[in-house]
């Protein structure tokens, strides 16, 4: 393990190797806001928890953590399954696939998990299998693209900076209409607070569990917003 250097995405031989690496470095965790869903995550029990981003075998493993906005959206979906009935769902920036899994478990017709990281794609498939659901995975960057295939978009923890948030909102405005549901989860980042127009309505607020507070210093709550 000590001799493992960061693998470039191109050199990964097969999904099997990736899956083995994921299993090696993560644990199956239910220590989060949606214990109904099992996920392969890096927790304080794992060696990589205290790793430096430069000497780990993955490139930016965002899929290995269950971010607070995603936890809030997944919790909201599980608590309000009526919202998912018959929906064709797109989970953008899916990471571990948690929101996608929550949507399927709540009665969605079909769900696509979207993440541009190929390692995330493998993690999502593994997590879907762990929770006995079928999820399609798409690795294309869909932000800005037409999304007629879906009538529900889920986003967790995407509003990192003002510039990307503006891009996201422009795309979501084109997508919204009465029959479409757009849910966004966030722990209260400033970029969201700075949004001028009132296109977002807060529908839920959750206190973060201790594990999430440890991973996300500075945040203690997460909210779900519905895009109107």
């Amino acid at each position, binding site marked *: 393990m000590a001799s493992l250097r960061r693998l470039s995405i191109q050199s990964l031989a097969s999904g099997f190797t990736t899956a083995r690496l994921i299993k090696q470095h993560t644990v199956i965790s239910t220590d989060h806001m949606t214990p109904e869903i099992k996920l392969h995550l*890096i927790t*304080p029990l794992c060696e*990589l*928890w*205290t*790793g*430096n*981003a430069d000497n*780990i075998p993955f490139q*930016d*493993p*965002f899929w290995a*953590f269950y971010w607070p906005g995603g936890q809030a959206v997944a919790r909201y979906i599980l608590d309000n399954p009526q919202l998912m009935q018959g929906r064709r769902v797109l989970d953008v920036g899916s990471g571990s696939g948690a929101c996608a899994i929550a949507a399927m478990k709540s009665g969605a017709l079909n769900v696509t998990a979207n993440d541009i990281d190929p390692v995330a794609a493998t993690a999502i498939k593994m997590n879907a299998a762990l929770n006995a659901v079928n999820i399609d995975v798409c690795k294309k960057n869909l932000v800005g693209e037409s999304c007629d295939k879906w009538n529900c978009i889920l986003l967790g923890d995407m509003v*990192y*900076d*003002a*510039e990307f948030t503006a891009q996201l909102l422009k795309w979501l405005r084109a997508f919204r209409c009465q029959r479409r549901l757009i849910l966004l989860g966030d722990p209260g*980042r*400033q970029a969201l607070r700075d949004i001028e127009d009132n296109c977002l309505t807060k529908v839920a607020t959750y206190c973060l569990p201790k594990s999430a*507070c*440890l*991973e*996300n*210093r*500075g*945040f*203690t709550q997460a909210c779900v917003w519905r895009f109107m």
Partner: protein
Amino acid sequence: MNPFDEIAVEEAVRLKEKKIAQEIVAVSCGPAQSQETLRTALAMGVDRGIHVEVSGPEYDTLQPIHVSKILAKLAQDEKADIVIVGKQAIDDDSNQTAQMTAALLDWPQATFASKIEKQNGELQVTREIDGGLETIKVKLPAVVSADLRLNEPRYATLPNIMKAKKKPIKKVSPKDLGVDTAARIEVLSVEDPPTRQAGVILPDVDQLIVKLKEGGHVQ
């Protein structure tokens, strides 16, 4: 990161966790490597960073007066309510920046803080002073400088390091902020303290008195 600044950053994050602060911005003045220091701050829980780029000879002569002017300007631009810094840098031990920044802004200052609480819209700060501890109340906005016992900064873990990569860092120059970095002090020399001379072991007190008289230490 200067250890006292690390304590200041940790305190800012704790203020946010206690919902006393809403947003934390970290500022670093220096060459390109300052971005690494800012990433560390972001990994500790800071929301965004501002890198004031100062390099080469301009950086060599950068002094607390310049940093204070930069921080004062940024505090005004960002509409900050609290400016928190480490009490001193461990390279020059100046212990001037907090005080000068407060003076430039005409804000109250609470230096050498070992505890910070918010009460009725004001800060109650316990300060470490020579005689012990002093507790003062300061109105906001205010400048605070962090002392050693304020807190113990937590080690940045992988999830926080990764999240830091997505947080924004804005780059500006002192000129953009209207600050002139021309040197106001000239360093004439820097010397190591003299190396300690070897001692001599003497057999008895009489010999000690002889040596003391020889050295002119005793009549």
